[in-house]
């Protein structure tokens, strides 16, 4: 069999115009469902972000206005509303995550003309996600610092233990900032060839992997500080350990472990495969002479 025969066998395997109306209809239905799921997930995440931000602003406002430790009777309604909002936020994020897992990864509204363009577009989308996550972390960081300052003011007047918590928070925030500082900086993309984009993507993906894989070291002081500030502070104020304090401690430890596992999972199952794929492509391109590749 020569090459022309092989080509003919290849081309004839799926003749044009076969009767596939039912299969095409089913496929079209799945495409429409994926689109709807994707946009529903975007809406849910947006709602969760807005709700979370409103809750943080509310806590910050109430804490700043209050000049002394909250009496238990006053704390209860605030606490219940906050637990409800947190549960709602977690539920919304969970639903958004599930919708995205059921649908396809967001591949964009249109497709670029070449592989280099595709990679560039994928990269922009990926870094937009990272930027959004960084923004969330920054808002969280500002909130933690603000609360630490408020708590420090209260601690000066009411309890020495809080200083330890404030100290731990300061260590966590400073450590996190320092750790990020030691990693390679984000650089603007100056070389739009495929090879240039690959190197840029690899460098930044590696940075994200390092950050997510080391999250435990800046998560531990935050969790310990929050436990000191909330359940232990409450127990000392009331002079006894109740089920509420034990429950709250377990919830905070669980949330910390959950955050750690989620970040580690993301690094291992999302970022590492992406990094490996990029490195494979880079090796392949450098083997075949990247200089021949047209930039788009």
């Amino acid at each position, binding site marked *: *069999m*020569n*090459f022309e025969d*092989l*080509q003919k*066998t*290849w*081309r*004839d*395997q*799926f*003749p*044009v*115009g*076969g009767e*596939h109306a039912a*299969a*095409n209809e*089913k*496929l*079209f239905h*799945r*495409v429409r469902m*994926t*689109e709807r799921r994707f946009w529903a997930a975007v809406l849910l995440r947006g709602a969760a972000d807005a709700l979370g931000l409103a809750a943080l602003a509310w806590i910050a406002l109430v804490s700043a206005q209050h000049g002394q430790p909250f009496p238990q009777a006053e704390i209860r309604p605030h606490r219940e509303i906050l637990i409800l909002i947190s549960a709602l936020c977690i539920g919304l994020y969970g639903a958004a995550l599930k919708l995205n*897992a*059921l649908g*396809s990864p967001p*591949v*964009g*509204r*249109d*497709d*670029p*003309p*070449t*592989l*280099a*363009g*595709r*990679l560039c577009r*994928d990269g922009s989308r990926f870094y937009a996600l990272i930027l959004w996550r960084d923004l969330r972390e920054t808002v969280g960081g500002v909130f933690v610092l603000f609360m630490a300052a408020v708590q420090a003011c209260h601690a000066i007047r009411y309890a020495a233990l809080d200083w330890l918590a404030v100290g731990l928070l300061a260590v966590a925030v400073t450590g996190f900032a320092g750790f990020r500082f030691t990693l390679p900086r984000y650089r603007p993309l100056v070389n739009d060839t*495929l090879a240039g984009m690959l190197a840029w993507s690899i460098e930044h993906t590696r940075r994200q992997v390092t950050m997510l894989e080391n999250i435990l070291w800046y998560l531990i002081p935050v969790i310990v500080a929050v436990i000191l500030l909330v359940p232990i502070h409450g127990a000392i104020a009331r002079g006894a350990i109740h089920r509420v304090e034990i429950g709250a401690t377990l919830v905070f430890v669980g949330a910390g472990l959950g955050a750690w596992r989620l970040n580690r999972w993301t690094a291992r*199952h999302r970022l590492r*495969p*992406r990094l490996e*794929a990029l490195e*494979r*492509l880079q090796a*392949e*391109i450098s083997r*075949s*002479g990247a200089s*021949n*590749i*047209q930039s*788009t």
Partner: protein
Amino acid sequence: MQSRSSLEIKYADWLREHRGILLKIAASFGREREEQADLFQEMSIALWRSLPAFKAQSKTSTWIYRVCLNTALAWRRAETKPRGHHAPLELIPELSSDAPPPGNAHERDEILQRLYAAVRALPPSERSLVILLLDGLSYREMGEISGLTENHVGVALTRARKKLAEAMKEVGNEL
């Protein structure tokens, strides 16, 4: 702006006429049938999303190859997809079920199986070019689709054809 219904009609036409392109790419990039169905679905979604951007400046088939190969190159096997959420297998046919009834279907199937195995063994960028070569596209069209120069396409294809010939030696191909 095109109405939703006109896009739907165009999409249905594309699927009817060029379904083979998607199936061949899915079978060249996915090993198991489940993976092929997932990739087929991903490419279909990418194709749907690319529809509003299609300005008919290139041939429809060129556009479809471009979108589908880009999707396939960036696609990763969805190992983490929840159980039961893979694309249904009936979306794609068995490799031979769409074919016209030839005299020696068994031999043809065997050649195709070997050919797909050989294509899948190639690195992804060479794999894309070999699919286009087997479909009879010119170097210029391959360059348009892949973003490579014609010169680079030629160099990469020479290397890929050698590997393919090695893999297909037993069926007596003169590649």
